[in-house]
């Protein structure tokens, strides 16, 4: 990116940014990573009712090819360490949707001894989706929110690339 970064800050880079963001947002491949109850709704979101693939979001089995990780369900302490590893395996730019109360903040399992209260303790989260579990449309809305966020990113404009990567 260093070469492109030397391009002066111009309208054209902003436009180009928009095109790049557009490709990114139109092809959000999410990792097949279900943890608990929300995983069923995640499956159903990929199913005929909500059909996340309309927005170009296809499931991938491996973190290496995914752009987005949907933390669907309760994150236990035992699993939290693995989740971190999986997140690290994803190539940049990567996004995280925290789906449901449990991964937002522990939800109803805050009382538990073995649950990591909130996935944001382990990895950064971009969008939180409420619900226990969120219905497929709610997750779709979460994806749309994430797309909005993606469109606002500036990769080519000086300095912000490093900022966004951080």
């Amino acid at each position, binding site marked *: 990116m260093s070469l492109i970064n030397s391009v002066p800050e111009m309208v054209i880079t902003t436009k180009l940014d928009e095109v790049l963001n557009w490709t990114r947002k139109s092809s959000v491949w999410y990792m097949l990573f279900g943890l608990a109850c929300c995983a069923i709704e995640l499956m159903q979101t990929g199913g005929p009712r909500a059909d996340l693939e309309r927005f170009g979001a296809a499931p991938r089995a491996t973190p290496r090819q995914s752009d987005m990780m949907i933390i669907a369900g309760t994150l236990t302490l035992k699993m939290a360490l693995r989740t971190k590893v999986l997140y690290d395996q994803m190539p940049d730019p990567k996004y995280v949707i925290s789906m449901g109360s449990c991964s937002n903040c522990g939800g109803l399992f805050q009382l538990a001894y073995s649950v*990591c209260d909130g996935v944001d303790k382990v990895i950064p989260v971009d969008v939180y989706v409420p619900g226990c579990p969120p219905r497929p449309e709610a997750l779709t809305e979460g994806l749309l929110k994430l797309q909005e966020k993606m469109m606002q990113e500036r990769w080519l404009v000086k300095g912000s690339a490093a900022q966004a990567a951080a």
Partner: protein
Amino acid sequence: MSPTEIHQRLQDQHTDAITSFEAAPLDPFVLVKPDSIVEVCRFLHDDPDLAFDCLTNMSGVDFLKEDYIQVVLHLYSYTHRHAIVIKADVSREEPSMPSVEAIWKAANWLEREIYDLLGVVFTGHPDLRRLLMPEDWIGHPLRKDFVEPEEYHGISTRRESLLK
């Protein structure tokens, strides 16, 4: 066979092993000395009139005030369609009792779970490791005096409510 009859039959064979029998509760149970649990269970499993071929449930209950851990076995016979509850009390300080894994394979994981969550050591168990909690977890969470650790591998287990 009714629980009373089952107890009678058990009493005839293993008098020393049985501490008491309660017929009044919802699920009548036989309280057994932990050391002789294997012979009692072996008899219950092998005797053709009893034929308890299935261990449906096995749980541990930590009685903090009374200072013992109770291991509860729910037995069921598919052959005769009758059930009985076997209980055994072990001390809280050094909880230990023989394993019934050799009789019912189902006990393998159930015992591991009780070991994991309550710390009861089942002697003679082929593979007594933690089942649910991570290997490096400290303490047995289902004990009544278990204190939740502050953090695990750098992940804090507390979370302040945003409402407070």
